[in-house]
């Protein structure tokens, strides 16, 4: 790919143990173009979140990157110093994690959580932050007049939308979304992802999207990578992964996918 926004090359990550090391990510390579939505799918424990964390170096010991390269907009993430890294997070790469809805500070009003970030990265005044906060909350269908509420006053789904709004605050180039809508109903899920789909066309950011829901993945992603035991076993366009999977494991994933719309998914369609 020419000038990918995110380029992961030959990445290996191990969880270092007392006796043995566990290789959670094994020589994984993929590129994500500017404005592209790239999906990572695969069974629980195959290493998706480990990659997601490593992209903004949020992985913690015992996780150790033991090989490879992560480039964002042409810069090596692994070479950033502490200051550069602090800027890089949120500003260039924002993240929405599996349980992000529980990551809001419980004792701060929603508007203060936006202000914290906007003041630190943009030097916004309280009034400026409030204005931006209102704009962002509207984007995720939360009435702006609730910005003075505390996290516990929202349902899990609403808190997750607030986190997504915070992620959009600094117009990042890449948003890493690890199961961002698992806790949401399908209407809100659709609204958010549809909105993110529109916004990435408008603003041009890329998305690395992780979900267990293969149907959703095909709807949203341009390209999809399938992981098995730390390895990327297949990658292709969403259409190819859905209609013409080549790897046995991808076929197996489809076979166990509970279908609501169509008939039960096909077993092997290739001989």
């Amino acid at each position: 790919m020419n000038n990918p926004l995110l380029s992961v090359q030959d990445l290996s990550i191990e969880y270092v143990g007392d006796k043995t090391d566990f290789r959670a990510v094994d020589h994984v390579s993929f590129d994500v173009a500017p404005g592209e939505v790239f999906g990572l799918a695969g069974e629980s424990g195959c290493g998706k979140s480990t990659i997601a964390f490593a992209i903004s170096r949020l992985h913690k010991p015992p996780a150790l990157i033991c090989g490879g390269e992560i480039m964002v907009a042409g810069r090596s993430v692994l070479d950033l110093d502490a200051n550069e890294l602090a800027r890089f997070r949120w500003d260039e790469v924002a993240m929405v994690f599996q349980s992000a809805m529980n990551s809001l500070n419980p004792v701060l009003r929603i508007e203060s959580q936006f202000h914290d970030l906007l003041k630190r990265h943009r030097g916004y005044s309280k009034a400026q932050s409030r204005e931006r906060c209102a704009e962002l909350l509207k984007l995720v269908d939360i009435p702006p007049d609730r910005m003075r509420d505390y996290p516990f006053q929202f349902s899990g789904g609403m808190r997750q939308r607030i986190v997504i709004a915070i992620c959009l605050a600094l117009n990042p180039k890449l948003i890493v979304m690890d199961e961002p809508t698992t806790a949401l109903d399908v209407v809100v899920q659709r609204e958010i992802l549809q909105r993110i789909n529109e916004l990435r066309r408008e603003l041009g950011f890329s998305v690395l999207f992780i979900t267990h829901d293969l149907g959703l993945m095909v709807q949203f992603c341009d390209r999809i990578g399938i992981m098995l035991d730390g390895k990327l076993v297949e990658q292709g366009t969403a259409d190819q992964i859905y209609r013409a999977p080549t790897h046995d494991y991808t076929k197996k994933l489809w076979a166990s996918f509970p279908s609501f719309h169509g008939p039960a998914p096909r077993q092997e369609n290739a001989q």
Partner: protein
Amino acid sequence: MTANPAIVSLQNIGKTFHLGAHTVRGAHDLSFDLHSGRTLALVGESGSGKTTCARIIMREYIADEGQLLFHGTPVTDNTPKGLKQYRKNVQMIFQDPFASLNPAHTVDYHLRRPLALYRRDLKGKAVTDEIHALLRQVELDPELVAPKHPHDLSGGQRQRINIARTLAVGAKVIIADEPTSMLDVSVRQGVLELLNRMKRDLGLALLYITHDVATAHYVAEDIMVMYGGQILEWGDVNAVLSNPQHDYTRMLLSAVPNPEIRFDDPQSRLDPTAVNAVREQAKQLHPHVKTAGPNHFYRHTAA
């Protein structure tokens, strides 16, 4: 309608939360029954009150209005003894299989505790035997799994431990609040099949709260669709899913992920104005019940 009498019944349950200047309708006029050997699915918007409903059944929240019945008798004994007796029969499984297990303790310990509390009749080796029987019941190898800690288990295995725990207590009613949403598809099916089998073999009554409509019709006989604290539509799962009456139910079903239609396809687009119109309508009080079929009902704002 059903052969088995209800174990737990809600009658016109209401609950309002007061948050400073705001009030939130957590539950309004909820009435339904949980029957032995049946699963009732509860779907609906996030924040519609599904967990509130679960907490009312668990008696973690006290309803402002209406009655909670256990085997037909209103539940009134709020002493610790009364609650314990009730919770011996009614147990909950949570979404996050990890958060509900203590990382410092083994699987054996997690099952030994409820047995010590609720099964005082068991002593010595009988306790260990029971733990092993419980693990086998949730399709885990007792020798292998009992000495392990939660972090040595996969998500699916952890959720099986949570199910085993509710069985250790001797529960007849299980309230499962998104029990599989943090598990992947392959594991998910295993856990759902396990719940199905428990229902059949042990005659459990299940309330299955989920966002995953596709799984609801695998495990449930009946379904309820909730919005803004009200149950807008309910009845036989196939009737409701194939012939939805309320606009909110229709919208919910149309938004179930479908790999055939991409978001970039303008046809797939949910129009925000239309969505909000449906929401505004769904938010209104719906005092009137209409019948769509022998076991299919929905609510309406007007008679």
